[in-house]
């Protein structure tokens, strides 16, 4: 009968953690791009775009990620789009991430004081120019800490992809638990690996935020 040593457990978990990292990166970058699009629709001049963006955000923030993953995986298949587990997982995470990032960034854009809009329009700038030269550069600075902070939620969100059969860190954890009968050790390790991935992100988000606040106070 096969036996897992502690090293076997850790090695298998670390191998699976590669997928957690890869999936997190894909979701975060893809989610950022889609999120930017949703953001521009949400704060744009076009009414249909604003309505769509609001509906989009409501839908993806108002339903469990677990359900979204399931519908992406099995639902798209029904419509003739055959997606492998990693693609469905990535797609659902991208759409989910986008809804949160769009809303975080909207807050940042709105945080740029109203006077800035008025001042820049009095300089004869158009909407695009205002965005490009006045609003976005300032919003960007405010946006960095919460964006880095949200990346932690993305890493943790990847844990749910285990349910549609994607073998990442959490799934490997349940599989190894079943082969070793050591749930305390295995889930302890799994939690530590997640912590090692997430904590540096949380910490840098906090440090960035503190720096930004100091910069603001000096104004």
């Amino acid at each position, binding site marked *: 009968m096969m036996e897992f040593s502690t090293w076997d457990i850790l090695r298998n978990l670390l191998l699976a953690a590669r997928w957690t990292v890869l999936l997190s990166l894909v979701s975060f970058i893809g989610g950022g791009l889609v999120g930017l699009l949703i953001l521009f629709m949400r704060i744009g001049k076009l009414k249909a775009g604003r309505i769509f963006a609001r509906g989009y955000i*409501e*839908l993806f*923030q*108002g*339903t*469990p*990620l*677990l*359900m*979204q993953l*399931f*519908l992406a995986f*099995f*639902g798209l298949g*029904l419509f003739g789009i055959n997606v492998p587990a990693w693609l469905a997982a990535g797609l659902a995470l991208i759409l989910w991430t986008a809804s949160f990032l769009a809303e975080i960034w909207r807050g940042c854009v709105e945080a740029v004081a109203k006077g800035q809009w008025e001042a820049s329009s009095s300089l004869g700038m158009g909407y695009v120019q205002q965005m490009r030269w006045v609003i976005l550069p300032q919003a960007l600075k405010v946006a960095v800490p919460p964006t880095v902070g949200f990346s*932690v939620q993305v890493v*943790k*969100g990847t*844990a*749910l992809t*285990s*349910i549609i059969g994607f073998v990442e860190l*959490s799934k490997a*954890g*349940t599989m190894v*638990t079943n082969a070793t009968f050591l*749930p*305390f050790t295995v*889930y*302890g390790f*799994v*939690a530590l690996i*997640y*912590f090692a991935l*997430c*904590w540096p992100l*949380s910490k840098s988000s906090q440090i960035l935020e503190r720096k930004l606040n100091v910069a603001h106070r000096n104004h």
Partner: protein
Amino acid sequence: MTYVFDFSWLGEYMPVLLKGIGITLQLIAVGAVLGISLGIACAWARALGPKWLGGIVAVYVELIRNTPFLIQLFFIFFGLPSLGLQLGELTAANIAMVVNLGAYSCEIVRAGIQATPRGQFEAGASLAMSPFETFWHVVLVPALQRIWPALSSQVVIVMLGSAVVSQIAAEDLTFAANFIQSRNFRAFETYIVSTLIYLALAILLRQLLRGVGWTLFPKRATR
């Protein structure tokens, strides 16, 4: 192959769905009340409590905020029994939600407390208020008022996150969906229905929390 949608099972399985909704509501009610209370206590410990206690709370908050809820749940339900702590699935799910929301609301409430100007403490003291009264009236209530919207969104996020408690056989709405689809093999229809129910619950919960905010902090409503 043609896939034909079929919702005819809805009537038969309605009791299962309703029971699932009930459990999900119970989980979030307990989670929100106890979790926010825990969060307030932790925020007090970190902002104004003794240093050693603040340190312990900081470790707790970081651990919870940097690991997935699913793993916390597995650890409590499958891992703790090897230390002799046996918890039923509903108790485990409730504890996991309280612990999770506690950590997040601690950070949110703390941010609100830190925004309270120092002079307010002194003003409270000069009115001969006890330290506890000062904390309650001068620090906490205005802080809660300030961060109520952030706290409300976190409660909704935790409610949606509770979908994973079905993994330890707690019979919530997702469990109901999984149970039904394992009987009728109508996975898509079942998940669509449960997704829409979650959406409705999230919208209702948000309205409810807004109403609670108005009742708790009437000043804000008139402003």
